[in-house]
């Protein structure tokens, strides 16, 4: 059952990696990728720990939650990409104004 | 282990070797066209061996049919997609390695 914990730790790692990139890089597309990886990390924690049921079937409730989460993630990604394109269409650059170094 | 199991193991290992060869080709070959060639040719055969190995273990004809269908779909998709990639590469003006 320690497989479950190993995957959960990978999930936590993905969350933090994504968080680092979200803050540390200015390009909006990269920030959107970072959020998606953070999301995958959270989902991995949810599902990996649901496997702590011995030989029985894993707990299905987190599975349903993650399917919900994946749909939220794709909706949010689509909206974020659209906003990014609008911002870059007006400024010529896919970064937020003012909060990055040149 | 029965004879079928041994046959499956052999086929799976053979398939794995083809996949390995395809991947080495993908990494080592010099340009996009040769890489595509390595990838599609070797991997399609590799997948064929793996499917053959799994068919031997299939519980019903229906399951075997599904496996065969998967192989055919992958063949079809990889053929079309590698054509599209190669075409795009040609249009972009990537020269063929000689």
């Amino acid at each position, binding site marked *: 059952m320690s497989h479950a914990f190993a995957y959960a730790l990978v999930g*936590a790692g993905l*969350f933090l990696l994504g*968080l680092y990139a*979200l803050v540390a890089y200015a390009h*909006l597309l990269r*920030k959107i990728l970072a*959020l998606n990886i*953070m*999301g995958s*990390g*959270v989902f991995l*924690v*949810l599902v990996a*720990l*649901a496997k*702590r049921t011995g030989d029985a079937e894993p707990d299905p*409730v*987190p599975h349903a*939650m993650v399917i*919900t*989460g994946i749909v*939220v993630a794709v*909706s*949010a990604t689509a*909206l*974020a990409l659209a*906003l*990014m394109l*609008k*911002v870059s269409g*007006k*400024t010529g650059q896919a970064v*937020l*104004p003012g*909060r990055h170094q040149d | 282990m029965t004879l079928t199991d041994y046959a499956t193991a052999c086929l799976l290992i053979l398939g794995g070797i083809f996949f390995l060869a395809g991947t080495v080709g993908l990494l080592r070959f010099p340009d996009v066209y040769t890489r595509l060639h390595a990838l599609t040719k070797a991997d399609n055969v590799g997948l064929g061996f793996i499917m053959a190995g799994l068919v031997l273990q299939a519980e019903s004809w229906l399951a075997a049919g599904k496996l065969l269908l998967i192989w055919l779909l992958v063949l079809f998709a990889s053929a079309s997609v590698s054509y599209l990639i190669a075409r795009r590469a040609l249009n972009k003006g990537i020269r063929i390695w000689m």
Partner: protein
Amino acid sequence: MEAILANADWGVIVILLPLTGGIVCFLWPAVSKTAGLITVAAVVLAVAGLGRQIMEHGAYRHTVGGWGAPLGIDLFADGLSLFMLIMTALVGLGISCYAKSYFNPRDAVWFWPVWLFLLAALNALFLAADIFNLYVTLELTGLAAVTLTALTGRIDALSSAMRYLLAMLAGSLAYLLGVALLYHDSGSVDIATLAQRIEPNATVWAALGLMSAGLALKTALFPLSFWLPPAHASAPAPVSALLSALVVKASFYILLRLWLELFADFAEGVSTLLGLLGAAAILWGSLQALRQTRIKLLVAYSTVAQIGYLFLVYPLASASSGLAAGIAAYLAFSHALAKSAMFLAAGNLMRFGGHDRIADLDRAVQRLPLTVSAFALAGVSIMGLPPSGGFTGKWLLLDAAMSQGRWDLAAVMIIGGLLAAGYIFKVLGYAFMQAKEPHDARAVPAGMEWAALLLAVGSILLGLMASEIFALIHPDLVANAGGAVERVWTA
């Protein structure tokens, strides 16, 4: 008829009504304005129905699907949730009346369905008793709020909406990771079940940290408030009002609820930290507001400061948590009324002059008296002067701070009040003066002026009706607060 009204399941109706309204607006854009206004008015009535049920029969609980927690999802409303629902319905109605005249036909087609979905999301959020369901409602709220922010399509609106969306999503994911840890620690996402099972251990602490950080980011608690001023300042006026009055309160409510039910007993250190950040927010937000040269940014920074007051509740809560939550809810309500009035007034001033530069307000007092009165009345509540709701709330908070010997927090509150007076009189002062380059006044629809004024009057009325309202939120508040309020009024 009477029986139907008494037995109808108002809690569910409060969620389904705006959902249906939003879909109708989406399917028939031509009727969206009418359908939107009718829906919002109907929601106010449904909330009233729910309020009557709760007053008569106590807390409301609905087991969705008939399963019951922890397997199913429960809806739950006590005085606190009811209070937030009333806030949303009334302020939402005021802003809707304003929005009716504000938007051009192109924007109105998008505003109404998204606003109705936002309303449904907020109502669902205040009724949720399940931390995963809260995540879904939070995401709904966030996506709707971002869409509304970007509505004008101007570059400042677009980039602040982008920043807003990134912050929202990061906050939600941190919250969701906390939910994951809590579920795997205690085997439930139902708040009541969790409350019985929860034991302080490292997992729960990590969940607490993640959820609090995510929600603090969404509530724009200093220093996580970087996204708020540009978003609230660049959105269309009714949207700024919705964001400042209602949307930030949603995540604050979740934090408060989690704190009350789950974490209050063992996390005193964290509540000290939240209080310190709240104090910092008051000082920093007020100083920034004072420095601004544009009304909308000034009002937005004022929101950062006023959110700080809400967080002062945490360090003062340890002794009597229910009471403190009541004070926080009351403060949130009075801020919602005052701040929505301010943003709407700012929208009127922009419509009137075509800009929102404070220095060029150009005799707005004479030419737009209702709007300036609305701004001034709302200002009374923001500064915390009697007899406004802001006064009563802040007085109770001050009283709690002094009785617990927290002179530092009391001092911050008083300085915050003085700074607020500074930035509000700055606007009012220029409104009396003639600008260097006088400009013509453009017409402002009467409905827009009256909507702002009525909300501002509401923020004053809230103070006058304090004891009735406290009876609604928390029984103990009447005893404690009644005394405090009377002491002030007789003095």
